[in-house]
């Protein structure tokens, strides 16, 4: 199992970091790791769904900042989170719909379509925010559901994240949309020939990726409420770092850019590996550049392994 190998590597890394710095293997640090994974892994899983249909989304990091800021603007207008959150999610869905239509109907490769959307939104985010983050001091019931609450000592974001991963894994294995996604990515023309609605399948995954990015952006903006502080709508939240880490997690977890294969558990394993690598290197006092160097090597190594494994399976 591909994911098993990633988990094994992660376990070795955890043992290594723990031997170098005892505070790695503590409850406090596991919270740091969990926060990182919960912020990224759902987006990585949505990226997997897109990569399965043979597409990619380079604008998720910008949607991750856009949605909470729109939520803030509506809330600021006096309409509260009750209106702000649905509007913010709709905005994310709209971005996904546009990405999908530009890719599927106008035949612009998604790499370019979403690169353009990413640039557009990074400018747009700064335009609507004047480049400043905003504090949202007032806790409301809706913020508790959307990332600001704690149930039995567990952040709701963790629960939402677990739920999202389980639902996506079920969709991929046990629902028609999952089978159609694999079919579309594996053999586009063959799938269409048989009667698979390849356009709708692709567009739905674009919308899914955008909505998940927007919703998890809202969760993270509301995270301050979980420890008695305020929410923050930050136009610099997420960004290209999140986008690239979501792709990295998917690829390390065994998802192929060629389409047709990818797993949600792989996205989780990849995301965990990235979290351990980043956090562990900080704790042992290594510079940030080492993290980037190692992550880069891990991505290339994983992809090479993936492609060679496919070739080997074909024999």
């Amino acid at each position, binding site marked *: 199992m591909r994911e098993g190998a990633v988990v094994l590597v992660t376990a070795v890394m955890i043992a290594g970091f723990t031997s170098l710095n005892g505070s790695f293997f503590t409850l406090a640090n596991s919270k740091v790791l969990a926060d990182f994974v919960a912020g990224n892994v759902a987006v990585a899983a949505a990226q997997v769904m897109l990569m399965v249909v043979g597409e990619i989304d380079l604008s998720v990091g910008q949607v991750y900042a856009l949605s909470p800021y729109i939520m803030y603007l509506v809330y600021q207008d006096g309409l509260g989170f009750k209106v702000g959150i649905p509007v913010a999610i709709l905005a994310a869905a709209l971005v996904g719909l546009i990405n999908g239509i530009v890719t599927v109907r106008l035949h612009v490769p998604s790499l370019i379509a979403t690169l353009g959307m990413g640039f557009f939104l990074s400018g747009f985010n700064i335009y609507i925010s004047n480049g400043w983050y905003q504090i949202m001091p007032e806790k409301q019931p809706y913020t508790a559901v959307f990332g600001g609450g704690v149930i039995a000592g567990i952040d709701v974001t963790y629960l939402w994240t677990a739920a999202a991963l389980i639902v996506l894994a*079920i969709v991929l294995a*046990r*629902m*028609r949309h999952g*089978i*159609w996604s*694999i*079919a579309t*990515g*594996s*053999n586009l*023309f*063959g*799938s269409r*020939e*048989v*009667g*698979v609605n390849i356009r709708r399948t692709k567009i739905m995954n674009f919308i899914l990726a955008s909505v998940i990015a927007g919703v998890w952006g809202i969760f993270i903006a509301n995270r301050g409420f979980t420890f008695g502080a305020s929410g923050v709508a930050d136009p610099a939240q997420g960004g290209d770092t999140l986008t690239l880490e979501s792709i990295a997690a998917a690829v390390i977890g065994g998802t192929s850019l060629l389409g*047709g*294969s990818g797993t949600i558990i792989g996205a989780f394993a990849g995301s965990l590996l990235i979290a351990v690598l980043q956090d562990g290197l900080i704790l042992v006092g290594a510079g940030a550049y080492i993290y980037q160097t190692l992550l880069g090597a891990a991505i290339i190594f994983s992809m090479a392994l993936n492609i060679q494994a496919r070739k080997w*399976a*074909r024999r």
Partner: protein
Amino acid sequence: MSETVGDETPVVKMEGIGKNFGAIKALDDVTITLHHGEVLGIVGDNGAGKSTLIKILSGVYQPDKGDIYFEGNKVKFNSPIEARKMGIETIYQDLALIDDLSVYHNIFLAKEQFLNGMPVVRFLDNKKMKTSAARFLTDLKIDIPEIDAKVRLLSGGQRQAIAIARSVFFSAKVLIMDEPTAALGVVETKRVLDLIENLKKRKDVSIIIIAHNLAHVLSVVERLVILSRGRVIAEREGKETSIEDVTRIISTGAA
């Protein structure tokens, strides 16, 4: 409108078919019939018009002249989709199978079966699809090591067999096979020819085979139509003819 031969209505009758591509007469007054449960071979040299003829039947081309009757009714196919809706399936060499899906998901692709329950959130009934696909493949004596195996891992003959089985499973009435053994090795070819034999016994699907390899065609067909330069020049019963006979007709262009 109805067209009958004796007391049996043929599944397909193509009558007086003519097709020109610019100045080239690809087909000229071609008439063929396909009876229920029959395996018909169409042979001829390159450029004889075999491909044009089946592309007209499968809706890819529209004829300039002549009529097509399907189960006695005059029909007109403007696209392959229209032909497929009637139950005319074409199996191409380059198959529309999904490498990354299992055998049973391939067979049920776009015709999935669901568990009973919620109307909007519908879960696939993988178990049911798996058992019915396995049973059907066993009925057709198609030997697949694992019904869960991804199609990527199967051989060319197994893939061909699954593509054929998929069409038959969803009640294709006419199967058009374009060079079904062209890319296959000896064992694999036998596998596909055996499958055609099994389908012949079931009598619920009529088959048209187009092939260059006369030995393969002659071993399974019941009737043979020989085309030359866009015309039918001979018809033979499968059992009564020999490779030498057919080769002579094709090379001299005369029965």
